[in-house]
């Protein structure tokens, strides 16, 4: 973030600097990163490759500069991410010189759990939620940073910055610890862990504005270009590889589309768009009257479905 001296003005010898809301959000997120590094034994940053992860990673670097972030990145790979996401992930970790751990739930692979035949709910549970729990247990992480924001969804709006999870990784919305001021109670029993959300108070607009301001690299899937898509169940699904079999009557069209969020490609609806630059995207987002999770097929199982998934251990 640029130095605040642009906004600084001298007034009767006293230094008066008005921080902008992005500067405040950035400073608070950095504070959270440092609290975890100081108080938790084995943190990890859950890197899911999307724009929120990009901002999270950027803030982690700032928090510890000139040191490197004192924790590795972890990606729970469902094996159904867009191919470009995987390329981007490996390139970024290499450029930044950060340790990248990739975990796949091999049990799920063996059982051939996949979004087409198993349905979104089972696929997400096995490959994402169970995969995440396996990875956290395998490495013994006691704190995992995630890029979730409270503005994304109603039950997330109620979640703490430091979200305590039981030994079984469950979230209990009824016993959340109060978090007054900037004071986080990081005490936990053996086996318990924290999910920590430094972007809790950011909005989708804040994330985009910050990406533009800080020139943060993000996958090109966020930018519109003609892509091979199939219209299915009211959504535009990009056919990223041959595993997506066409149903009778379906055909691949080349439509100029982009993605507002990135996940498993069969579960991520594209939006028709020609916004190919950041300002275009930001302008389009401002004008949009549809929330970003609209494209996420897994969220529509009912208004409280996210709460339920979170209780089961989903991020």
């Amino acid at each position, binding site marked *: 973030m640029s130095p605040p001296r642009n906004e600084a003005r001298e007034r009767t010898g006293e230094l008066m600097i008005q921080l902008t809301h992005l500067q405040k959000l950035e*400073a608070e997120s950095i504070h959270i990163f440092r609290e975890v590094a100081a108080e938790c034994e084995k943190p990890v940053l859950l890197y899911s490759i999307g724009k929120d992860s990009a901002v999270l990673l950027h803030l982690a670097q700032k928090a510890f500069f000139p040191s490197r972030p004192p924790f590795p990145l972890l990606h729970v790979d469902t094996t159904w991410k867009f191919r470009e996401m995987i390329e981007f992930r490996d390139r970024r970790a290499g450029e930044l010189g950060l340790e990248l751990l990739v975990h796949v739930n091999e049990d799920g692979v063996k059982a051939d759990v996949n979004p087409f035949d198993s349905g979104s709910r089972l696929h997400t549970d096995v490959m994402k939620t169970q995969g995440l729990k396996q990875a956290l247990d395998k490495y013994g992480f006691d704190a995992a940073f995630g890029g979730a924001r*409270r503005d994304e969804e109603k039950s997330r709006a109620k979640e703490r910055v430091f979200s305590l999870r039981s030994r079984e990784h469950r979230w209990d919305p009824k016993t959340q610890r109060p978090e007054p001021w900037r004071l986080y109670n990081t005490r936990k029993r053996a086996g318990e862990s924290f999910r920590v959300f430094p972007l809790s108070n950011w909005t989708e607009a804040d994330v985009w504005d910050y990406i*533009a301001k800080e020139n943060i*690299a993000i996958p*090109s899937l966020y930018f519109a270009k003609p892509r091979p898509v199939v219209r299915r169940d009211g959504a535009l699904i990009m056919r990223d590889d041959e595993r997506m079999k066409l149903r009778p009557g379906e055909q691949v069209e080349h439509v100029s589309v982009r993605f507002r969020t990135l996940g498993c490609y069969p579960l991520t609806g594209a939006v028709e768009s020609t916004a*190919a630059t950041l300002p275009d995207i930001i302008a389009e987002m401002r004008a949009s009257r549809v929330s970003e999770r609209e494209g996420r097929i897994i969220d529509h199982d009912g208004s409280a479905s996210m709460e339920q998934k979170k209780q089961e251990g989903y991020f």
Partner: protein
Amino acid sequence: MACAFAEKEFLSDAPSPLATPRASEKALLRFITCGSVDDGKSTLIGRMLYDAQTIAEDQLAALDRDSKKFGTQNGALDFALLVDGLAAEREQGITIDVAYRYFRTDKRAFIVADTPGHEQYTRNMATGASTADLAILLIDARKGILPQTRRHAFIVSMLGVRDVALAINKMDLVDYSEARFNEIVTAFHDMARELDFQTIAPLPISALEGDNIAALSERTPWFQGEALLPFLENVESARAQAGDEPFRFTVQWVNRPNPDFRGFSGWVAAGAIRPGDEIVSLPSGKTSRVKRIVTQDGDLDAAVAGQSVTLTLADEIDASRGDVLVAAQQRPDVASQARARLLWTAETDMHPGASYIVKLGARTANATVADIHHLTDIHTFEPAPARPLGLNEIALATLRFDRPLIVGDYRDNRDLGGFILIDRITNETVAFGLIDQRQTPQKEEAAPSEETAPPPDRALLRRRLPASLGPALFSGVCVGSGAILLGASPATGLLLGLADAVLRPLARGVYANHRLNRARAAARSEERLGDGAGI
């Protein structure tokens, strides 16, 4: 396509909107909405989000579905359902937990803490207030000021919110009556005299109908103020203005990437700092000068309250997590005991003498509740006798720490004056604490004087008396039999013994009272000594 390159091309292309002051860079206002149950807090927030056009179509569609299923507005859009996110809340139609909401207008970005009205969730309401610049206090125009209104006003004031928008809601149900509005405003002003508000802005609104929310309503032509959203866009909160406080920096993490660099990464809690400024590290008391203010974007010329930076110092002084770097000329107190208001947040009671973990700034230590002076009745604002502290109760207490802590009065700085207590067995956060160092306390915490034995001391004496009864009787017997041995008549001996047994504890009680006051005075002067001595 590599996007980083695309962005760079875009950045180099003039005229880049990023080079000019950005419309996306706004000032931030945090506020809390509170009020009694069913005063319409969630409805108001839903209405503001709606009027600020931050509700997307799919969210509106979901709201429409939910309104028909759970709604309390006969199937019409129930804005409360936009913010009540937990399944239990939707089923019960109440807000349990604090929910944070976000919206922007052309002028400002807002973070809203929507907090529960029910007394059993007071701690969640206090959490929302702890970071708020301003409070919207809702009052149902039909009901006027309710016990919960008083409680919320008290907690909001205690947690340091100085600016209040007094939103008299449901004006549609009192025919937009100016007289009713004025009546409530007057009553509120009477009540608020005992509180610590700087500005109180009354507004007649209807969250349901949208009156005086985004724009002034034609149905209240008598109202001279601004509508709620414009008010929130323009208000200058007292907290945001505080800019000339002495420098305070909490060290969170010592930054040592290599043997040549040793920086202190932390949070500027107050004031400002520039390279060359003299600082003192507390509690060690070692002084040095700031050499560099390091960030990934390059060194800064200055850092101010609310920034996360890394400082390097001119001298190799010892400082570690939890220490505080402060302006050399204006030092906070370093004390191993402090007086504080406690808001109890646990289901289990707190007893004097109990030991907890305290977290203040980046420092964690052990704390013992040395004394509960008195409770505060949050409905009447009056002091109540000291007793074990239960859920949502507030007390003035003295805490002893096992190491010196850097403390500041909460009213001066939330980061140096706010702390939490943690139960070391359950790990639960059991209390919010607010350091209270003022020598001229408010009415309900009148300093104990020697002439009138105040409630806290009487309570203390009551606790001590039973323990001193046994020894007193014994010493009475001794005095009496000693007198008999010395030749006095048995009757005189008995009388002497009796008199001793009765009078000595009384004298001891007065003495204990005296000693307590002396100890307090000593503690106060210790604090004063600590100020400036830097130890």
